[in-house]
């Protein structure tokens, strides 16, 4: 079980790792500490999701990915 | 000057300033409003902003701004004197009969003294207040918060030049503010 991550202040453009190993880039962070609007960058389980946007629930962020590009 | 001398200067000034605040509180509680007005600089600014509930990280939205926003108080000596005058008419019904007040002043801290603690002309002091108000039969209010004051030297004494009052309330829980804080 991974350590909880406070998603409240994650920066748009950085990415997060989801439980199935998918990586999504944060498009919008509503700043509520519960949700992120993110776009799939990779999705090994279901490659059709790549490029799609989805709301990511905070407990589903298991790790931080790449930070936002400068 | 030794370090001990510097500490003694701070100690003496701290007590002198605290005594000023206690004496000011007593004047208000004893309803000696004219004498209280005499403790105010002619160009005093007396300001109590309103407070909002704001998101973590958006502290700049928490307080209403002086000069431009609506505040609870944001006024000078003329208006403060008119408040006293109004009470003294004896027919300001919100303060007639007059309230019973106790101003408890605590956590007095001298934040700075210019040009020096040894010979100060201006002092910045913070304190916390608990004001107990009881009026008519069972009406009771308590206001609690912090004050940020600037005092300026006036002969052997001090005048209150600026007061910012930070009240720990959002919706005001008392029906009026007929008293000074």
């Amino acid at each position: 079980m991974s350590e909880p991550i406070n998603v409240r202040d994650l920066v748009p453009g950085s990415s997060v790792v989801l439980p199935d190993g998918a990586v999504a880039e944060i498009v919008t962070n509503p700043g509520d500490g519960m949700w992120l609007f993110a776009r799939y960058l990779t999705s090994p389980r279901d490659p059709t999701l790549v490029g799609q946007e989805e709301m990511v629930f905070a407990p589903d962020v298991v790790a931080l990915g790449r930070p936002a590009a400068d | 000057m030794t370090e001990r001398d510097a500490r003694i200067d701070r100690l003496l000034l701290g007590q002198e300033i605290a005594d000023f605040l206690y004496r000011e509180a007593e004047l208000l509680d004893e309803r000696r409003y004219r004498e209280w007005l005499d403790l105010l600089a002619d160009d005093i600014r007396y300001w109590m902003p309103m407070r909002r509930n704001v998101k973590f990280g958006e502290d700049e939205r928490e307080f209403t701004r002086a000069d431009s926003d609506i505040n609870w108080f944001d006024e000078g000596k003329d208006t403060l004197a008119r408040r006293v005058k109004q009470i003294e008419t004896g027919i300001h019904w919100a303060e007639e009969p007059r309230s019973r007040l106790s101003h408890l002043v605590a956590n007095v801290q001298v934040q700075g003294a210019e040009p020096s603690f040894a010979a100060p002309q201006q002092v910045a002091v913070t304190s916390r207040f608990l004001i107990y108000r009881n009026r008519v039969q069972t009406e009771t209010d308590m206001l609690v918060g912090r004050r940020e004051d600037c005092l300026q030297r006036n002969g052997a004494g001090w005048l209150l030049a600026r007061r910012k009052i930070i009240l720990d309330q959002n919706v005001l829980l008392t029906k009026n503010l007929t008293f000074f804080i």
Partner: protein
Amino acid sequence: MSMNGAMNGRRGYRSGLVNLGVGEISREIFVNEDIYAEEQERIFARAWLHVGHESQIPKPGDYFVSSMGEESVILCRDRAGRIHVFLNSCRHRGMKVCRYDEGSTTVFTCPYHGWSYGTDGRLVGVPYFREAYHSRLDKEKWGLVEVAQLSNYKGSIWATWDPAAPTLSEYLGDFTRFLDLQLDGWDGREGQAEVLGGIQKWLVPCNWKFPAENFSGDTYHNISHRSVDLAGIGPSGASRRDMGERDVSRKLHVCIPDRGHQTILYVLPAGRLPPPAYMNAPIVAEYFRHCEEERRRRRGDESRLIGAPGEIFPNTALLSRQPRTMAAWHPRGPHQTECWRWFFVDRDAPSEVKQFLRDYYIRYSGPAGMTEQDDMENWNYAHAASRGTIARRHPYNYDQGRGTAVADYEYQGLRVPGEVIDLTEVQSSEQPMRNFYRRWVEFMEADDWSQLATWRSRTGRSGERKAAE
């Protein structure tokens, strides 16, 4: 209008509590718990209520948490720029979705279970929607509860929960021009108002109807404010306001029957500009002198109307001049009111003018306002005295000036709508209160708007209408 038998014996509202025929109203209406509960259903759930002003939510995502009756609501502007008013309560289990007073956001998320709503109220985020709900929750049905109707009138935002309510325009009727005095520019341009930052909110231990009837046009209580007149907080250094324009005008009570809106109104003589005002600050005095000339140029005879305290039924108070402020009297149980105040300036007024007025507004109105303080004291103890067993057997007297209102009032060529009493000689009347409570009775008794929108059935027969008591 009499009640049916089923109503008799109820502990709440019953006919006879308000007896306008003799000008008496029972104290019961201020203190009775059942009447209060009925008011929430019959009045606050059906009427148009003032929520805020568009200048408080200028950009998409901006929000201001307000109140409609007892209930917390969110006034916000969605991504497309449209204004909404929502019940501030998660559809799932009720937690408030916003406990900040104002700000800007992309979503409103409930802290309890994480349901998340867009600024258009749509439910967009449901944790474990696929897993726990098996994708079967119809999100379209579970967005934030939105008001049935919303109206933006010259920047002021009004809302009602009742889809059957008439439009705001019809609800206001002939009172609209008095709301115009509040919202139009000092120089006569339409809708120039902006709200100063900082909404005053404070609690007063009285029933909401005490302030509501006071602002309906209590011309009798001026004596209570004598101390502030003696203190001289007015913008020319005397009294509590510049009295010049009032001293040269006819002083009226204007009541819009059928609507329950009423106001004090001053009407200048034909061709007369208001005397100089704001003499404590030459820049401000000159600004207003210029505004008054422009106002007359733009509005002609209409510019002779000088605003004063008024009330839009049920709980929105107006005051358009010295000071310029609107209030909402939010019910918080029968024995408590949460008063909110908005203060207005013209958005393009010079900063010196705005600052001068702001200083004046603060020392006049609100809990630190040297005028309003005495009102709250009166409301507090009048309410307290209304609660006693013996006290409640003795109704209040609302008889002043009964039977003296006229329709078709005119002064030097300017017609004033509604039922009017000219107070210039008689000093005072209680017609506005009778008008307010007549409407209160109608709301408490009417089953639906067919009974409330009584003006629709008065298809101008002779144009003459007997002035009501």
